[in-house]
């Protein structure tokens, strides 16, 4: 298999992700690591909580990987996403893409994270000192 998609309740491991996309034919690996930021629009964020519609989220991530394979000559694609509560500095998402040449890896990696944010049914709740909000829910 050249694709690995995973939703996980436990800490994501960057080295494991890079190792998985490594192979003798590749000349480069592109990795996107999302991290929990401590501020949103001037308000301090205490922590985040991620909820997923798991079956559909996996299916949508598989679609994105297939699209990326269609568009660019890449070797392997890995998408790992967290669910549950994450503290500031923790990692909600890792995308790793390997390819023979770097242009394909860069472009595919960018495409995967951008599309994931638009189509994959995963929701993020931000917790502030004075309240909590589901991100992007309201205009």
């Amino acid at each position, binding site marked *: 298999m050249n694709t690995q998609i995973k939703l996980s309740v436990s800490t994501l491991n960057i080295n494991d992700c890079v190792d998985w996309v490594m192979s003798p034919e590749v000349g480069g690996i592109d990795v996107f690591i999302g991290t929990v930021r401590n501020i949103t629009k001037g308000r301090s964020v205490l922590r985040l909580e991620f909820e997923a519609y798991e079956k559909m989220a996996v299916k949508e991530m598989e679609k994105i990987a297939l699209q990326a394979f269609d568009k660019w000559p890449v070797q392997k694609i890995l998408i790992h996403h967290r669910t549950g509560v994450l503290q500031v500095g923790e990692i909600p998402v890792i995308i790793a893409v390997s390819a023979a040449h770097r242009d394909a890896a860069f472009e595919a990696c960018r495409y995967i994270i951008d599309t994931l944010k638009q189509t994959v049914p995963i929701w993020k709740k931000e917790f502030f000192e004075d309240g909590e909000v589901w991100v992007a829910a*309201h205009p």
Partner: protein
Amino acid sequence: MKVNILAFGITKDIFGSSSVAIDLANDATISNLKYLLEQEYPKLKQLATYMVAANNEYALDGDTIHERDEIAIIPPVSGG
């Protein structure tokens, strides 16, 4: 027919539950379902947007709902 509707994220808060059972006509469409839900839960209309999924795929307003379909409300996603 009675169809079970799954809720996630903010729609879980709006429904007050992670699923609700809705009575639908046998040939009901996604847009019929949206109308009924918006009558019952007007806060749905305040969302930036929302989609409906049938059997783990995004559905179109004109799609027909079948009795054993797994239907879910998909409020604006915010993963990553």
